[in-house]
């Protein structure tokens, strides 16, 4: 208040003759009114400036992007030397438009990087290689590497995105520490980059990861792992057995299922003894999807001691395996359980046995209660998927 009085009181005294004589509440109100008016006009100025700057940037991009597109089309996509089978690293790209001083400006360099990455996402093979050569010839890789050394995490993330998109190798010593960064976005991007760029052990960070892999991280990692070409896929059972990070184990189970790693079944089976419900549930789900028939008996034997989520997964797994060995168990659960979801999943699993369960289905339809018959009809209807 003293400060406000010191700075503002003389101002107001000039324009409001009676300012000093006003009660303190009125003085504060006058002060805050002034601040509000200034803040409102500042907001207008910022809105206008942001719109102006944004529109100007868009216009500038609209001016240079056609030139970049023309250059890339003529010299990369329709490159004659490439058509004659000349190796990419021996092709000399004309500098053309890039010799103009405009292309030494920072924003133009960034626009060029973005445009090259845009094309690189759509073109692989030799054209992709030539785009990478252009990126290096224009020394844009140095721009990205310089950014990687920035202290700001968002700049590092941007650099990692660029280098990954251009398939530039980054030394393990630079990238591995980032895979455990305290900043989630940086940590996540470093992991993506490591998987894409590491030629030796792309999954090494699984060994050192201490922070949990969040569901969103898993979604992104899954996408990268399953879409990166030439990546050597390890036996994920290694982490299922040894990792102390629950989220890494759960994620590896999803990868095992995706790559149908049958050799991982014994490791997954050991998880059935885990005290963690979440892990057991994921393990049962994986065993079902892998159709691990040898584990069927164990699944049935542990059924009664499991929480509902695990029980439902066991019922689903038996349906996926569809061996017919435990139809009687499924029948029992369908008829005896009081839980709606148990009955529904048991019914689905019986139906999944197809021809093997035809006579049982007929019998159940004939003898079941109205509600159970409805469940069976629901599960048998091909129009209803869930």
């Amino acid at each position, binding site marked *: 208040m003293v400060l406000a009085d010191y700075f503002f009181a003389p101002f107001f005294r000039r324009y409001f003759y009676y300012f000093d004589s006003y009660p303190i509440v009125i003085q504060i109100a006058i002060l805050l009114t002034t601040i509000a008016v200034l803040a409102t006009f500042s907001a207008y100025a910022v809105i206008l400036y942001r719109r102006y700057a944004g529109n100007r940037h868009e216009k500038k991009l609209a001016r240079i992007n056609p030139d970049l597109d023309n250059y890339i089309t003529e010299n990369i996509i329709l490159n004659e030397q490439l058509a004659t089978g000349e190796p990419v690293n021996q092709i000399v790209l004309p500098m053309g438009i890039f010799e103009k001083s405009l292309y030494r400006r920072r924003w133009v360099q960034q626009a060029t990087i973005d445009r090259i990455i845009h094309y690189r996402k759509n073109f692989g093979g030799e054209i992709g290689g030539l785009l990478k050569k252009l990126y290096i010839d224009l020394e844009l890789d140095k721009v990205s590497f310089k950014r990687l050394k920035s202290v700001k995490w968002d700049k590092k993330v941007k650099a990692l995105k660029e280098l990954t998109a251009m398939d530039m190798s980054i030394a393990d010593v630079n990238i591995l520490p980032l895979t455990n960064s305290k900043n989630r976005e940086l940590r996540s991007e470093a992991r993506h980059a490591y998987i894409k760029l590491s030629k030796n052990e792309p999954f090494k960070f699984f060994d050192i990861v201490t922070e949990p892999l*969040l569901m969103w991280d898993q979604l992104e990692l899954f996408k990268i792992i399953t879409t990166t070409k030439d990546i050597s896929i390890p036996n994920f059972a290694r982490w299922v057995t040894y990792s102390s990070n629950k989220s890494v184990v759960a994620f590896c189970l999803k990868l095992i299922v995706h790559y149908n790693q049958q050799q991982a079944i014994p490791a997954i089976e050991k998880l059935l003894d885990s005290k963690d419900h979440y892990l057991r549930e994921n393990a049962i789900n994986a065993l079902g999807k892998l159709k691990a028939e040898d584990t069927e008996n164990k699944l049935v034997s542990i059924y009664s001691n499991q929480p509902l989520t695990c029980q439902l997964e066991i019922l689903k797994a038996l349906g996926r395996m569809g061996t017919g060995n435990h139809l009687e168990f499924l029948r029992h659960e369908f008829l005896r359980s009081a839980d709606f979801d148990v009955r529904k999943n048991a019914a689905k699993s019986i139906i999944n046995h197809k021809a093997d369960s035809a006579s049982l289905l007929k019998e159940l339809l004939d003898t079941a209660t109205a509600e159970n018959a409805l469940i069976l009809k629901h599960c048998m209807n091909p129009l209803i998927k869930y």
Partner: protein
Amino acid sequence: MQETFLERVQDFYEKLVFTYGTTLLITYAFLAALSLAAIIHFLRRNKNIDYTSMLDSPIVPGISVVAPAFNEGVTIIANVRSLLTLNYPLFEIVIINDGSTDDTLEKMIREFELVPVDFAYNIKLVSQPVRKFYKSTNEAYAKLLVIDKVNGKSKADAVNAGINACAFDYFLCTDVDCILESTTLLKLIKPVMDEEKHRVIATGATLRMANSCDIDQGVITRVRPPKQWLPRFQEMEYLRAYVLGKMGWSWINCVPNVSGGLGLFDKEIAIKAGGYDHQSFGEDMELMTRMCRYCYTNDIKYAIRYIPITLCWTEGPSTIKIFMRQRTRWSRGLAQLMFAHIKMLFNPRYGRMGMVVFPYNFFFELLAPIVEFFGVVYYITLICMNMINWQFAILLLVFVYAYSVMITTLAILWDQITFRYYKSWREVASLCLMPFFEMFIYHPMIMIFALRGYYYFITGKKHGWGSMTRKGFGGNNAGAAVAAAKP
């Protein structure tokens, strides 16, 4: 002696109102700062995410989109088609025909090649009986499930039936006439999948008015602020409520409500909390309160998150009559909620909900129209008795006016920082003009309609379920006003 007593009462009242007003203004300033932090944080974290590349992932959680429809015959086909354009790897659309008396159901059956199916329906939440379930024989509409039920006289009853039929662990509750952005599901599930320490029980995003937007085949192709003044006031109000208010509350995990127009919910918690209350007029806020209460009672560390981007466009009331009906119902719902859960007020057992969210709602949402009303009466009395200091009164009025304009302008700025939805600066300017008139036109209306809602609440006046009279979006539906009958 009597004069001294009156003076004391007057002095006490003035001090009370002063404290109330000051606290409210400080809270708004606080929210403005928090929301800016939340928006910047959101933008930095999300600017590099390529959502489209995730749209074919096999490991996302499934989501059921639940949309009730009552007498929506004019717009139902376009609305369902709009929902079918949603882009997400694993989802279903559950449309609940809540006993419509028009041709809503017949139109859907014809258009989407629906046939009745035997559906195993597990009644976890109470609702009016379901007559039939329909699925499409056309593979293109395989995600669609239509439930035909007896009219329950409320959206809550219809949504409860929809939740019972949901196949997935999360459900998105929306109005069938809302237009959703195609990646809405992925953007709303992200906060759920991205949370480290809490269980995210609900997420929401900004809603905007669709009134003057260009719409093609149920997809927004050009965003514009409404041309009519009433919907434009609402657009301004929504921006302030979502971008500035809820984003600020989200930053400190104190979101009071996830809008009924667009909200993604954890189905397990919603069911355990008892689902929507079909007797409530503010069913969305009521459910949210019970979900939070359930989490506190069961020691679940929960979070409710909001994102500042606009994912849903809705048609705002364009006549005062419909607007009055809507706001009366909302305020009645708020009064119902406050009295039903009054034990939560300042109850430390309910953590932030009891100590922050509830007191805020009680004092600055529920009581605000009453305080304002008595303020106006007091003002007029002082004027009549010639007891007013005009110089100070005008200075204080100017202050409140300038402050309210500032807060709304900041909300518009925050929205512009999030994304430049409007193409031209003229459109932004047309919205920036609205705060200048709010105090004289829009705000008094809100106050009066709120008091009307409280009156109905106190007197227990029967108030039908307010299905809004809609004009429909674009194409053949434009201008075809649907006078929805009230059950």
